[in-house]
């Protein structure tokens, strides 16, 4: 089964080139840290991950997406630690024969990830760098 999940320190870099044999649709979602959280300006978000489990849950979600939506390939990347606002903390790429299954799977995957994958985020306020650590 073609899937890859990566949890890495800090912001994600630009997406690598991606070609998938037989794919007619490649869909990429990037989650970007916004400059405002709960109406307060923030410097960024700090992500805390329960690593072995987060990785395992992402792998299971990716495998299920491939099975249930008939995808050809799934790539997931998520940040751990601090990500400044404007930077990318999450990237999901799906390859499918047709766009419908890719778009449906995209929505499903992100909902499930927020529910099932043990990753927590904490705003780092502009004025309060101490909130960056516990």
């Amino acid at each position, binding site marked *: 089964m073609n899937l890859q999940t990566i949890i890495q320190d800090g912001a994600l870099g630009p997406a690598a080139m991606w070609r998938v044999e037989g794919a007619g649709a490649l869909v990429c979602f990037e989650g970007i840290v916004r400059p405002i959280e709960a109406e307060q300006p923030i410097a960024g978000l700090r992500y805390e991950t*329960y690593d072995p*489990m987060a990785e395992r849950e992402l792998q299971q979600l990716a495998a299920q997406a491939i099975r249930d939506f008939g995808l050809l390939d799934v790539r997931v990347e998520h940040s751990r630690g601090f990500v400044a606002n404007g930077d990318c903390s999450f990237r999901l790429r799906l390859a499918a024969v047709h766009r419908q299954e890719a778009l449906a799977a995209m929505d499903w995957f992100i909902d499930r990830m927020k529910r099932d994958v043990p990753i*927590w985020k904490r705003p780092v306020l502009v004025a309060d760098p101490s909130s960056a650590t516990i």
Partner: protein
Amino acid sequence: MTAKVLIFGPFADAAGARTLEVCLPETDRVTASVVMAQVAEQHPALRALLRHAMLAVNCSKADDTTVVRPGDELAIIGLVSGG
């Protein structure tokens, strides 16, 4: 037995720690629901948060009847972690 339970995010904030020590009854069948009840009993600061949490045993979500054995890795996971 005494078990260590990993905690994260708001749970760690509320407890002021990243690991909890929890005393468990000395029976031969300790389930995930027993662990969670003991965490709430012994760490009152977490009670409100625990309503939306579950136990993970060895990196898998446990249900109430999952049996916990010495040496298992235990962690408290939010029902919505909000990644």
